[in-house]
């Protein structure tokens, strides 16, 4: 029983990382209606910036996270401006391919700047782990912080898109860009804002990812990025609470699959989930079914 609980805990700690990445994915998809496959690589850049800030520039962990957020926000806006904005009227396939290209560009830029040698990321989380059942069950500080960060971000995003003017503008843009423009909403600025928020979230995700799993390389973001995309689809892409639930469930499925079936097939379970969801409930757990109006 304790063994099962400890696996469950590992699953939740892994899942909370997927969830926090998936939040960014879902947010950008929900508003801009595009899959930003470079999201995973923005995460990696965020982690590198935080690493540099603590190791080379001698900043405190909290300040380094803020620095990483600022840099990623700027990066997100610049990427959107240079790579995605000129394709606003193009087919979604063209945008998707551009996003994949951007992903490789970021990875190889990181390779040029920081080199191929992996770096060990010092955790920014300073609280210790919680011990339950006489130390048989340990919950790490990173897990606690990640779960809390998830909840805070989820509530903040829900309130932001539901209550504020800017948030409402975002929702309008996501429904109908043309109509939004007619209503006097600056569509380009709104989409830029979406990317800014999504990229700031990516920085937080990168820092937490590397705090929990401290190996940092230029490809660090790609696999978690793809898994988080799966989590976002699982939960219902575009849905903010869906991203959280999808992420957590996916993490638990991966760990339990590894523990009770085969350690080799961990990734296979994750992607099997993606296939099953797409076949059975393409809108995901919490996704809304949108009828195309002709």
């Amino acid at each position, binding site marked *: 029983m304790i063994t099962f609980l400890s696996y469950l805990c*590992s699953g939740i700690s892994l899942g909370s990382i997927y969830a926090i990445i998936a939040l960014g994915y879902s947010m950008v998809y929900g508003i801009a209606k595009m899959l930003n496959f470079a999201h995973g690589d923005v995460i990696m850049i965020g982690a590198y910036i935080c690493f540099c800030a603590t190791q080379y520039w001698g900043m405190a962990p909290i300040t380094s996270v803020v620095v990483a957020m600022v840099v990623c926000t700027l990066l997100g806006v610049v990427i959107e401006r240079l790579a995605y904005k000129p394709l606003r009227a193009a087919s979604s396939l063209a945008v998707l391919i551009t996003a994949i290209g951007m992903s490789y560009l970021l990875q190889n830029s990181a*390779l040029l700047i920081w*080199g*191929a040698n992996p770096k*060990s990321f010092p955790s920014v989380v300073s609280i210790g782990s919680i011990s339950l059942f006489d130390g048989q069950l340990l919950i790490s500080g990173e897990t606690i912080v990640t779960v809390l960060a998830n909840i805070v971000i989820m509530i903040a995003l829900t309130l932001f898109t539901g209550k504020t003017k800017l948030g409402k503008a975002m929702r309008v843009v996501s429904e109908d860009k043309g109509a939004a423009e007619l209503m006097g909403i600056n569509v380009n600025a709104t989409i830029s804002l979406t990317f800014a928020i999504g990229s700031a979230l990516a920085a937080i995700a990168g820092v937490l990812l590397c705090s929990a799993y*401290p190996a940092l390389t230029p*490809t660090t973001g790609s696999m978690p990025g793809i898994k988080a995309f799966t989590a976002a689809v699982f939960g219902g892409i575009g849905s903010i609470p869906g991203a959280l639930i999808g992420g957590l469930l996916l993490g638990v499925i*991966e*760990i339990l699959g590894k523990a009770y079936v085969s350690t080799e097939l*961990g990734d296979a379970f994750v992607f099997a989930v993606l296939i099953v969801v797409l076949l059975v409930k393409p809108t995901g757990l919490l996704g809304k079914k949108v009828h195309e109006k002709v």
Partner: protein
Amino acid sequence: MKTRKLLAAVLALAMALSLCTAASAEGAIKIGVIGPMTGGAAVYGTAVANGAKIAVEEINALGGLQIELDIQDDEHDAEKAINAYNNTMDNDTQMILGTVTTNPCIAVSAQAFEERVFMLTPSASSPKVTEGKDNMYQVCFTDPAQGVASAEMIVEKKLGTKVGIIYNNSDAYSTGIYQSFIVKAKELGLEVVAETTFASDDNADFSVQIAACKNAGADLVFLPIYYTPASLILAQAKAVEYAPTFFGVDGMDGILTLEGFDKSLAEGVMLLTPFSAASTDEKTQSFVGKYVAAYGEEPNQFAADAYDGIYALYTAVQNAGITPDTPAEEACEKLIAEFATLQVSGLTGELAWAPSGEVTKVPYVYVIKDGAYAKME
């Protein structure tokens, strides 16, 4: 119009310069270096290129026989490696130091065998690399040799009684060591209580594998893997308060130079490796000093193997009387004859070669104490 003329002038100048460099290279033995210089495995390819460059600088500074390297990127991809091989052969390469990683090396060596080009890989350690090819030699240990030596060492030094293993079964290197280890362990009566795997270099969560070893009561965990996943395993084992003896192989070398790594995690970790940058040996120290000065980081075993590889080729080329005008096919036959008796004293030990292409040298066991390697006698 003006800019266009200027551009033409610049291009003409560039062309003239490139002709100059080509001309200056005449009179040098041309060695092709193939490996992943970019992409996920770039850490190994760049280390090999850097180690080789240091050896070449030393040799060229001696005067006499000059060496020129032609470094080609294969991105750790078999198909691109074939292209890289064809590129370097088009550049009149006479012999090849490479390729760095196993799968591309198997592909390239097959073609080099057909075309009779001599290859010496610094680091592709699978026996499949040399199998059935008389032109293919290795500087590194083969994977099975490491597995056997590890099992023997654990039994001989009584390092553990119940062994858990975590290996990467998507990686030929890791699987090769594991397979020979398990056979030897059985033969020596070493009890293996847990065998767990992971399937990708990008894998970050080892909680399940660690729990399996912990629950099985393993007092020694054998890690035939590279140091990046090993660093994650050490951190995650500590998080669940599991502290067995960790025993690694040459892939573990480099863990102490991992930037930002908390060295206390590696306290007591043992590893079997022919090269350590921490060695007090004079030759090693000089190499490490030059490497750090040139590239700003400590060399790993890949760099050392490449350095030894260049010296092995240099010695063999001199003995066999190969000149910059010798065609690749002729150089190949001469080098094969020469490697049968060649002995080189390098950074990774006293090197000699079996006709199969496999190297014979002695590995050492190091234990990490106070954040540094200490040789275990």
